[in-house]
């Protein structure tokens, strides 16, 4: 597909327009479907505009970290699968994939939305490990928000398998995961000194800087990550915080039951 050039995107934004005619604080259409992968304990498909992300949750039993013997273990991984973009190469996760995974991880971990203590089987020996895998299938920007949305949507619906005689019985369940909050990550991009949310691929290529802010149900901030080779002023950061709290509330409604 023919893509608009960086300069064109910037010029439009200077004139308060976006390439797809959205407002600066408007998301593309969002579609969330859960429980779409039978082999996973939890799953969600998130489509934001033309970005398409599949999140799967697999549960297993393993050893806890020595500094948290009574807590389950959370592991987030992101794969920028080559089917999603001509710029994605096969192989181990590169720095972009690692950053996406770690920012999603931080929002979930720091919001304490999973009651990890309830995932302890035997203190110091056996705990549940939650593996969240974010699979990017089609890339049109804003993967952090899409991945984070998919991760929490999948977590809410995920089921805990039965565990008998030191064996996980996949396919038979004994309940849901202990989820007590719904963190939502919102990325604000800065292009030509203007702030906008949900950047698509063309806008991502043109951005100076971006900041992802995850908020919880109470509207508190639980994780922040600035990216990109430009800077933000204090006033811009404040504006991004307000946008993230406001949009976080709207997006939370899409997945809360």
């Amino acid at each position: 597909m023919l893509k608009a050039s960086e300069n064109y995107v910037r010029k439009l934004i200077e004139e308060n327009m976006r390439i797809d005619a959205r407002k600066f604080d408007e998301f593309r259409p969002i579609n969330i479907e859960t429980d779409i992968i039978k082999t996973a304990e939890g799953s969600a498909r998130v489509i934001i505009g033309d970005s398409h992300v599949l999140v799967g949750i697999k549960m297993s039993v393993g050893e806890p970290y020595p500094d948290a013997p009574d807590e389950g273990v959370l592991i987030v991984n992101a794969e920028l699968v080559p089917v999603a973009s001509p710029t994605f190469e096969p192989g181990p996760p590169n720095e972009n994939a690692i950053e996406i995974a770690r920012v999603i991880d931080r929002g979930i971990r720091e919001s304490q939305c999973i009651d990890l203590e309830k995932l302890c089987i035997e203190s110091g020996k056996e705990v549940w490990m939650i593996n969240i895998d974010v699979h990017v299938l089609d890339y049109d920007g804003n993967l952090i928000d899409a991945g984070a949305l998919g991760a929490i949507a999948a977590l809410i619906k995920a089921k805990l398998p039965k565990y008998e005689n030191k064996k996980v019985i996949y396919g038979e369940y004994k309940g849901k995961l202990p989820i007590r909050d719904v963190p939502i990550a919102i990325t604000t991009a800065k292009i030509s000194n203007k702030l906008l949310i949900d950047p698509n691929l063309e806008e991502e290529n043109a951005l100076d800087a971006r900041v992802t802010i995850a908020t919880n149900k109470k509207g508190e901030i639980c994780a922040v990550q600035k990216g990109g080779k430009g800077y933000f002023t204090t006033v811009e950061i404040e504006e991004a915080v307000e946008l993230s709290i406001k949009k976080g509330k709207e997006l939370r409604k899409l997945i809360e039951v």
Partner: protein
Amino acid sequence: MTKAGKPEKMIINGKRLDGRELEEFRPITVEVGVLKRAGGSAIFRFGDTYALSAVYGPKPMHPKHLQNPQKAVLRCRYSMAPFSTKERVRPGVSRRSVEISKVLNEALSNVLFFEDYPKTGIDVFVEILQAEASTRCAGLNAASLALAEAGVPMRDFISSCSVGKVDGKIVLDVGGIEDNYGDVDMAVATIGSEDKIVLLQLDGIVTKEEFLKMLELARKGCLQIYEKQKEVLKEKYKTGELDVESQ
């Protein structure tokens, strides 16, 4: 969440466990030009956090397919020495070090004149030799000084510090135990004394008001770091200046 080994209180009578005030840095020591081979090098310490940075280049970029015909390419590598923490760090790259290398690169990219050196590469290495929290901030401060010593054209320094929330109080320069058991940890870097934030990472739950207060304190902290960086670099080249005058 409570963790094993957490002290009951981390702020007693308005002082922190290491005797500091809430808005006080640990002792800061800085040295520039500590390595012979590197084009530029520096050590930056916040108390027991010990960061060493070395800069090589601008030099011809290899492999060649990574060259940019218009400008220089910056490569950053943040790495922790295996003996830098209580439990040994596995040598080599980790997901954490890849992410930190990326954000350090993005922060430093704000001040370098890449167009001056087409087809070249600038390598910035940050080695954390001893870690007691705020390692990325110390590393960034050291890298900034090392780049200056290497003579790489820069707009300004990048100055960085951390702030946190410990026992409900906002503190400057998060120290070891506060990092492990504090509520919130935030790393900030600015372009010199300007209101331009180039690094911002936060872990933990804060309200919007607290967050803005933390950001304000961090900016004050960065300003102090900036003054320190300028002072050290001026000191380093002072003798030469005096000689010229006496002749």
